[in-house]
C-alpha cells in the first residue's frame, strides 16, 4: 500500500512548556511577567500551555521511592502537581481566555483555539501505571518534558518551546558549575553523543526526536528574562535550539 503523508492536526499552534520547579515554584515574581507576556502574544499567536510539576512532584517521588513503590505508582503520583500548576495558570489567565483542559478534552482544542482561548493542560503524558520501568532507575522517564513534546509531535505544531530558568542548554548545570557554557545550537545526535551527566531536558525527548515525523526542532528559553518567549515564537535566535540534522 502506498503510504500517505502524515497530516498535521493543528499546524499553526505553538506548544509551550511552563517549567514547574524552574518557573512556577518561584511564584509571583517569575509567573506574573510571563502571564503578561502570554496575554500580549495571544493577539498574534495560537498557543497551548503545558505545565510542569516541580518541587511537589519531587517530594512525592522521594517519599514513594523510600516506600519501595514501583515506577508505575510514581508516574501516577507525578500526575497531580502539574495538574495543580495548570489549574493555577488557568485561574490567572481566565480573564484572558485561559481554559483548563484534560487529555479527554484534547479533541476539543480546535474549538477553544477558534474562540480565541488559551488552552492550558498538564504536561504529564497520561501513562500512569502503564509507565515503563526505566533501566537501572525507578523515576519515570516520561514526565512533563516528554508529554509536552509528544503533544507537539501529535499535533504537528508550528513550534515547541520549553520555558525554564536558565538561558538554555549548558555543558554542565550552570547552577552548580560556574564554568558551564551555553550551547546556542546543537543537533540531537551531537547532544546524545556528548552524553552529558545532566541535561535541561528529559532524555527520552531526544530519543523521540530522532524518530519524530513533525517536531524535529525545539527551543529552550529563559522565562525569567522578559521577551524570551516572544522571540522564540517569532522564530528569532534565543536560548538553545535543538534540531535534527
Amino acid at each position, binding site marked *: *500500500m502506498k*503510504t*500517505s*503523508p*502524515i*497530516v498535521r*492536526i493543528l499546524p499553526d499552534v505553538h506548544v509551550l512548556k511552563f517549567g514547574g520547579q524552574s518557573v512556577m515554584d518561584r511564584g509571583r515574581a517569575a509567573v506574573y511577567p510571563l502571564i503578561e507576556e502570554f496575554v500580549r502574544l495571544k493577539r498574534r499567536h495560537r498557543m497551548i500551555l503545558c505545565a510542569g510539576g516541580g*518541587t511537589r512532584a*519531587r*517530594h512525592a*517521588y*522521594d*517519599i514513594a*521511592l523510600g*516506600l*519501595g*513503590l*514501583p*515506577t*508505575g*505508582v510514581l508516574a*501516577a503520583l507525578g500526575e497531580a502537581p502539574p495538574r495543580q500548576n495548570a489549574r493555577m495558570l488557568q485561574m490567572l489567565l481566565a480573564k484572558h481566555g485561559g481554559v483548563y483542559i484534560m*487529555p479527554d478534552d*484534547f479533541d476539543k482544542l480546535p474549538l477553544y483555539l477558534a474562540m480565541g482561548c488559551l488552552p492550558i493542560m498538564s504536561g504529564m*503524558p*497520561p*501513562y*500512569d*501505571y*502503564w*509507565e*515503563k*520501568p*526505566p*533501566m*537501572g*532507575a*525507578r*523515576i519515570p522517564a516520561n*514526565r512533563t518534558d516528554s*508529554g509536552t513534546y*509528544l*503533544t507537539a*509531535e*501529535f499535533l*504537528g505544531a508550528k513550534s515547541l518551546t520549553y520555558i525554564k530558568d536558565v538561558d538554555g542548554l549548558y555543558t554542565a*548545570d550552570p547552577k552548580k558549575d560556574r564554568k558551564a557554557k551555553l550551547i546556542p545550537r546543537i543537533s540531537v545526535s551531537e547532544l546524545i553523543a556528548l552524553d552529558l*551527566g*545532566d*541535561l*535541561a*531536558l*528529559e*532524555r*527520552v525527548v531526544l530519543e*523521540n526526536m530522532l*524518530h*519524530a*515525523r*513533525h517536531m524535529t526542532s525545539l527551543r529552550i528559553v529563559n522565562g525569567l528574562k522578559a521577551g524570551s518567549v516572544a522571540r522564540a515564537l517569532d522564530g528569532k535566535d534565543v536560548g538553545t535550539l535543538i534540531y535534527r540534522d
Partner: protein
Amino acid sequence: MRKERAELRQKHLQGGLKAESLIDKSVLRASAADKEIDILPDAVVVSIGGASIMDRGAPAILPLVDEIARLRKRHDLVIGVSGGARTRHVFKIALDLGLPTGGLAHLAGASEEQNMKMLQALLAKHGGIQMTKDHFWDLPHKLASGMIPIMIGMPPYHYWEQPPRRGRLPMNGSDFGLFVFAESIGARRLVYLKDQDGQHEADPKRVPGAKLLRRVSARDLLRLPDEDLIVERMLLETMLCARHVREIVVTNGLKPGALTKALSGRTTGTVIYAPKEAGR
C-alpha cells in the same frame, strides 16, 4: 510543636530530591533499588489474543470462558483482551488517511473495548466486570469480592504514543500494555493465550516444522525478526527492565486445559524469562 513542624517541612520539601535534577544520571542511578513493593502479589493476569482467539468466535471463546470461570475459584484473575482484525482494519484506514501514530493509538482502544464487552457479557454470571483505567484503584475491592475484572490491553498512551522507530504503527501495543500493567501491580503470573503452542524458533505459519521453544530468555528472542515473535518486541524490551514480572507464559488458548496448566506452573507452552543480569 511548631518547631517540629518546621523541621518536618524542611526535611520533606528541602531534603531528598528537591534540589536535585531528576535528569542527572547519578540521581537516577541512586533511585534504583533491589526491592519494590508488590501491590497485588496474588493477582494473575491472563491475556486473550484478539486475532488469535476472539476473531475465531464461539468455538474458540466459549470453552475458554468456561475454563476461566472454573479457575476463578482458585485464582485472583484479571483478564486482558486485544483487538484483532478490527484494530488492523481501523489502522489500515487511518494510515491511508495520513493520520499520525498517536491518532492510531487512540483509535485501537475502541475495537478492544468491543472484545472486552463480549467477554464481560459471557462472564457476567461468574463475576465478570469491565475495568477501565480510572478504576485501577478499585482492583483490590473487585478481586476480594470474587469478581473477574476484564480490561483492554492497549496502554492509555493515546495521542502521547511515542514516535515509532520504524513504520507508523504504535510500538506500545496490547501485549506490552498488559505486561506493564502486571508489572505495575506486581502480579504473580502473566499468561498470554494465542493460537499457537508458544514461541517457536520461527513463526510456524511461515516456516512449517519450526521447533517450539519451552524456555527462552527475552534477550535471545529480541534477536529474532518481528515476524517470528509471538509477542510484541516492546514487551520483550521492557521485560529486561522489569522488577516484578520476570517471566511470562505464552500458551495455546485453543487447547482446553492449557491455561489451567500455565497457572499451575506446568505449562505446555513457552516460558519467556528476563535474564538475571538484566534490569533492576
